[in-house]
C-alpha cells in the first residue's frame, strides 16, 4: 500500500500560516516573506505500520519558527510570513514552481538533494541573491564537493550523525562493528558515512553486510536475525534503515548480546521528543500544541532555518538575503536552539554546527560532541566536515 503524504494539506497549511500573521498596519513594518518548498512523495511499504510518517514533517517546524519569530518581530516592527509550496510526486520541480509565480528571496526546503541542486540552478538565473536553507537532505556531498553557494544547511549531514555515533562507540570502547545496510539510497549514504567515521575515529568494521531478507520479520525475526549475525564477533551492530522497515527487529534478536546503533537502538539525531534539557521542554510543548505530534529532526531543522533568518534580520535590521547571508556566515551570528551550545554556520560550507543528541526511544543517552574530543575552534567541529579537509569551493571567495 502506498501512502501519499501531502494530499489535503495544502489548504490546511495556508490557513495556519495565515493565522500566524500579525495585523501590521504601520507602514514602517518590514515584511519578511519566506517560501517553504517540499516535495510530496510515496512512502515505500514497511513491515510494521507502528510509526506513521507525519505528512507535515518540516512544515510544522517552519510554521513554529514563524510564530516564534513574530513574537520578537512585534517588538522590532518585523513581520514574518510563510508561503507553502508542495511539489507533487511525479512533477518536475520547474513545472511545480512555475505555477506559484515569483519565489521569495528566502527559501526553506525539505527537498531531496536532486531537487535542491535543480532549485539552486534555477535561482542562479532568476534570483542569484536568493538564500536557500536545506532542512531535509543530509547528503554529505552537499556539504563537500557539491556544495552550493547560496544553500545553507540546518539539518546535520550524515557525517555529523555518524561521527557522533563513532565518538560514543569509541568512548565505550565498542570498537568492532557489524554494519548492516538497508536498501534505500539514504541507507547507503548513512552506511558509507559510518565507514568514513570508523576510519576517522579508529574503529573497525569487522563485517559489512546488506539487508536482503524478504521474509516477514514480525513472525520469524528470532530465527532470521541470529543467522545473519552469527559470524565474526563484534561489539555492536550498526544498522541503516531510513524508513524503519527491518531495523526495529534487531534489538534482542542478534546472535550475540550486543547493542544496536544507527537507525535503531541508539540513534544520532538533530532532534527527538526525548530531548528536554536546556529549555527544550518549552520548544517541545509549543510544537506539540501546534502540530498535535512530537517534533522530528526535519521539523527542528526547518524551525532552526526560520529562526536563523529571524535572528539575522533582528540583528541587521534587514530583510535583504545578501545582508542576511553575510551576517549568518560571520562570527557575530549565534543561535540559541535548545541543545545547550550556541550554534553558528560553518563559513566554509554553510552547515549549521550543532550538538547531536544520541537518543533511544525513551531518553537522551548523551550528546555529541562528547567530552574529550577536542578542537582548536569549536568542539562541534569534531562532527562532520571540518575546514582543513573541506572540498567545498563555492564558499571560497
Amino acid at each position: 500500500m502506498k501512502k501519499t503524504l501531502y494530499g489535503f494539506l495544502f489548504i490546511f497549511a495556508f490557513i495556519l500560516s495565515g493565522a500566524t500573521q500579525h495585523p501590521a498596519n504601520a507602514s514602517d513594518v518590514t515584511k519578511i516573506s519566506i517560501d517553504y518548498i517540499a516535495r510530496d512523495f510515496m512512502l515505500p511499504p514497511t513491515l510494521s505500520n507502528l510509526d506513521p510518517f507525519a505528512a507535515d514533517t518540516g512544515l510544522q517546524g517552519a510554521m513554529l519558527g514563524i510564530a516564534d519569530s513574530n513574537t520578537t518581530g512585534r517588538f522590532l516592527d518585523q513581520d514574518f510570513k510563510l508561503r507553502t509550496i508542495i511539489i507533487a510526486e511525479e512533477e518536475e520541480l520547474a513545472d511545480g514552481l512555475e505555477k506559484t509565480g515569483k519565489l521569495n528571496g528566502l527559501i526553506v526546503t525539505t527537498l531531496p538533494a536532486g531537487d535542491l541542486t535543480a532549485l539552486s540552478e534555477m535561482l542562479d538565473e532568476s534570483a542569484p541573491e536568493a538564500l536557500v536553507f536545506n532542512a531535509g537532505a543530509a547528503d554529505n556531498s552537499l556539504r563537500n564537493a557539491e556544495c552550493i553557494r547560496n544553500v545553507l544547511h540546518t539539518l546535520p549531514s550524515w557525517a555529523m550523525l555518524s561521527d557522533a555515533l563513532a565518538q560514543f562507540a569509541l568512548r565505550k570502547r565498542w570498537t568492532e562493528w557489524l554494519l548492516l545496510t538497508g536498501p534505500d539510497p539514504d541507507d547507503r549514504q548513512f552506511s558509507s558515512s559510518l565507514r568514513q567515521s570508523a576510519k576517522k575515529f579508529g574503529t573497525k568494521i569487522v563485517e559489512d553486510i546488506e539487508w536482503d531478507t524478504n521474509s516477514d520479520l514480525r513472525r520469524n525475526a528470532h530465527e532470521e536475525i541470529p543467522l545473519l549475525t552469527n559470524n565474526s564477533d563484534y561489539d555492536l551492530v550498526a544498522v541503516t534503515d531510513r524508513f524503519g522497515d527491518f531495523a526495529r527487529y534487531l534489538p534482542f534478536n542478534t546472535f550475540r548480546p550486543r547493542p544496536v546503533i544507527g537507525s535503531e537502538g541508539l540513534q544520532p539525531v538533530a532532534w527527538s521528543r526525548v530531548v528536554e534539557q536546556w529549555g527544550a521542554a518549552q520548544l517541545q510543548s509549543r510544537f506539540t500544541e501546534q502540530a498535535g505530534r512530537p517534533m522530528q529532526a526535519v521539523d527542528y531543522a526547518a524551525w532552526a532555518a526560520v529562526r536563523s533568518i529571524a535572528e539575522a534580520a533582528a540583528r541587521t535590521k534587514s530583510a535583504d538575503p545578501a545582508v542576511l547571508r553575510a551576517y549568518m556566515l560571520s562570527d557575530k551570528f549565534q543561535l540559541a536552539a535548545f541543545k545547550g551550545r550556541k550554534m553558528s554556520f560553518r563559513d566554509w560550507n554553510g552547515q549549521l554546527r550543532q550538538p547531536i543528541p544520541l537518543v533511544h526511544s525513551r531518553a537522551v543517552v548523551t550528546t555529541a560532541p562528547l567530552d574529550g574530543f577536542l578542537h582548536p575552534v569549536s568542539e562541534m567541529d569534531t562532527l562532520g566536515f571540518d575546514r582543513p579537509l573541506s572540498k567545498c569551493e563555492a564558499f571560497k571567495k
Partner: protein
Amino acid sequence: MMKRPALPFIFLLATACPALAGEIWVSNEKDNTLSVIDIESLEVIRTIETGERPRGIIFAKDHSVLYICASDSDTVQVMDPETGKILHNLPSGEDPEQFSLHPDNRLLYIANEDDAITTVVDTVTRKVVAQISVGIEPEGMAVSPDGKMAITTSETTNMAHWIDTETQEIFSNTLVDQRPRHAEFTSDGRRLWVSSEIGGTVTVFNTEDQSEAAKINFEIKGISADRVQPVGIRITQDGKRAFVALGPSNHVAVVNAETFEVEKYILVGRRVWHLEMTPDEKQLFTTNGVSGDVTVIDAENLKAVKSIKVGRFPWGAAYRP
C-alpha cells in the same frame, strides 16, 4: 535542661535570635521540595514539600510568607515558613518560572515561561492586576529599587522588556545576546545587569536611557567557551562587586562592578544556576542543578568552603533570618 537537642527547639531559637542565625531556602525543581540550610552549621535542617516543579522562590519583605513558583502546578504558592504549610495559591498565569516582588511588598511580577506573558498579581487581593505580552519564554524578572520599572527577559526573543509599573506597559525593548536568563538591578537602581546564557555574556544597561554601559565576557582556562553560560547574578549593596553563576562551566565569576573586569573564577558544583547572599554579604550560596548540591562561598576571601547535598535540580535560593 534538654538532654538531646530537638530540631524544633533549635528552630525556635533560630527564629528568636535573627542576628545570630539565618537560613537559605533552596527550591529543588525535580523533587518538588524545598531544602532549608542553616547558615551557621551549613546543614540541611528541614525539607518541605511543595507543588510541582518549584523554581523561583522569594520571601515577603518581612519574611512572614514565602512565595513559590510551582511551575508545573501553574500557580504561585504562598507558604508559612514556620509551619511549611501552604496558606493559599495565587493566580499566576501558566508556568510561572521566576518572579520579583515590588518594593511595595504587594505586587508580584511573574514571568510565565510557556505563555509569553508577564503577570502582575496583587498578593493582598489575590487578583491578577495586569498581564503584559512579552517575548517568547520570559524568564528573568526584576523590579527596580524605586519600584518604577520592571524588567522581563525573554529567552527565545533575546530581549529585555522594560515595563512601566504605573501603566503596566512596555516602554522599551533592548536586544541582548542569546537566551537571556536573569536580570538584576544595582541597589542604587542606576544599572541593570542581564545575563545571556547561550551568548555567554552579561550586558549592563544604564537604566536612565536603556543604553548599553558594558558587555562582560568570560573566559575560563581549559573550558570551552560555549560551556561558559551565565545565569544568576548577585551584586553587593555598595555596587562594587558582582557574582555571576556560569552554568555548566561549574564556576562563579567575581566581577568588579565598577570596571566590569572579571577578577576571579571560583569552582563550584555542576551547572550552577542561581545565587543568594546573606545580608552581611559574607556568605554566597550557589544552586548547582546537575550535582544536586549547594556550594557555600566565603564572599570575603572568595573561596568555596563547603558543598551541601540538597534535592534533585536545586534551582532558586532565598535568605531568611
